[in-house]
């Protein structure tokens, strides 16, 4: 059993990290909005999904005009991801403006239900458009990166197996890590990031500091949604086929990552995402060996939800919950 675990470890790490960074970036969207409004923006998974569809649309348009064959794939990819993130950024900002802001002082439950409503709405709008244009709500995109990469991890340690992956894996991993680093810099080192943290900590007082709180909230939604939309593009690049419901499970797992890291805590969401990604891939590779075939890889999803429940019961503030003494 141990031999199997060690042998699959390199592959688990590669797959787990890639999945983990995807969860991490989406989790940040949940955690940023929660940090500032104490709202669980359930529509965030659908922003991710919309990003995947917008990206696919741009990709299909580029390929139909022959642009794809004339430029390097990476350039096409950059164009797609930039367009999709700007579009989803505005989408998220618009949702806040029309659906959440009028409810700013309403009971939390009402806003929460509104968020769920928005996510159904987005699913159906996307499904409607997809079926109208393609006749099917499942859409496939031409693949951009599909060279096979063979990582000779067995030469490091003979017990290791080799890791195999498509080059798209690398793109996903690198782009997601860049997004995490840039976001961390934005939040902790820039003026608007500081304003965002101030509004999250004390909205009323932030307004006394000549900070336009509504503007900061809009920026927060823009940034979180743009990251979510960009991750949708990564998902599309990785898996090739998308449907209007991909945001649901992925959204819940990313939300779990946010809760695990301590909701409201951005770095916590990053770590939470990585942990869940790694654990899920570990389960997928080893569950059947460990349980002697009683449970197969298809049970991997249970882990994320078991974690969610366990965290909520035993450590609701998460691994890195805000532990700050607030003196009055």
């Amino acid at each position, binding site marked *: 059993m141990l031999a199997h675990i060690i042998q699959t470890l390199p592959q688990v790490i590669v797959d787990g990290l890639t999945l983990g960074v995807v969860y991490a970036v989406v989790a940040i969207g949940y955690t940023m909005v929660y940090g500032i409004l104490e709202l669980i923006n359930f529509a965030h998974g659908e922003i991710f999904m919309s990003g995947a569809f917008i990206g696919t649309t741009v990709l299909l348009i580029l390929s139909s005009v022959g642009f794809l064959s004339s430029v390097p794939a990476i350039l096409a990819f950059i164009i797609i991801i930039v367009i999709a993130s700007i579009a989803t950024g505005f989408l998220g900002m618009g949702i806040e403006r029309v659906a959440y802001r009028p409810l700013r002082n309403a009971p939390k439950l009402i806003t929460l239900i509104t968020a769920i409503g928005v996510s159904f709405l987005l699913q159906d709008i996307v499904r409607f458009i997809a079926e109208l244009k393609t006749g099917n709500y499942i859409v496939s995109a031409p693949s951009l990166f599909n060279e096979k990469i063979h990582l000779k991890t067995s030469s490091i340690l003979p017990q290791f197996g080799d890791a195999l992956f498509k080059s798209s894996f690398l793109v996903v991993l690198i782009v997601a890590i860049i997004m995490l680093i840039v976001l961390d810099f934005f939040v902790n080192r820039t003026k608007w990031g500081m304003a965002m943290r101030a509004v999250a900590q004390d909205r009323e*007082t*932030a307004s*006394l*500091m000549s*900070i336009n709180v509504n503007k900061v909230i809009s920026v927060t939604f823009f940034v979180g949604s743009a990251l979510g939309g960009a991750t949708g593009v990564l998902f599309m690049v990785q898996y090739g086929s998308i449907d209007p419901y991909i945001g649901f499970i992925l959204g819940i797992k990313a939300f779990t990552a946010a809760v695990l890291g301590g909701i409201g805590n951005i770095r916590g969401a990053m770590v939470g995402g990585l942990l869940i990604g790694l654990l899920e891939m570990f389960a997928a590779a080893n569950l059947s060996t460990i349980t002697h075939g009683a449970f197969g890889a298809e049970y991997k999803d249970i882990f994320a939800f078991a974690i969610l429940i366990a965290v909520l019961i035993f450590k609701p503030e998460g691994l890195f919950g805000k532990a*700050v*003494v607030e003196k009055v």
Partner: protein
Amino acid sequence: MGSTHVLELKNVETYYGKIQALKGIDLYVDKGEIVTLIGSNGAGKSTTLKTISGQVKSKNGSIHYNGDDITSLPAHKTSLVGIAHVPEGRRIFPRLSVKENLLIGAFSIKDKKVIESRMKRVFEYFPRLKERLDQKGGTMSGGEQQMLAIGRALMMKPDVLMLDEPSMGLAPIIVEQIFDIIKELNNQGMSILLVEQNAYQALHIADRGYVIQTGQIVLEGVGTELMTNRQIQEAYLA
């Protein structure tokens, strides 16, 4: 037009839902004055300051700043015209560093040199803050937090400084320091509107004072005169 006050409230009424917290406040502050507003718990002192800074909206009446109508200015714009509000309970951003807390006071300023020179000024008043730039605001002592809250407001270089119970919960020696600094700022030309429950000390440094009771001004006068007023002695200086 007669002489304009730096800050003037006329018949200001403020509601929280159906509850009327201010029932027609008339009050003014002249350039270079220290004016204090005293009253017991729930009288409407904080609401008066919040209405001026735009954190809550008045339903009736007007607020003028140097003759300009600022009645419906939102909070984030009031600080831009020159009114800084140090809120009750200090309200330091607990997870921002001391430096960030100060920087956020100068949020509207783009010029780094201006920010730096203002920060230097703040350190002249509160040298303690300089030693603790990287400490999280929430881990500072109560007195340090009050200094930081005032320092943060000074980063706006206001003409009018409004302070809501700066002495709350502080040791007498710290209160004295803070009141000294308020006087010093006033000597530099800053107009001060000071809300206090600590009536004796407030009236002592104030040019004029107002007494507020259940949303209404019930007494006003020169600071030292109010101090000898029977009613006040009974109610607040006992």
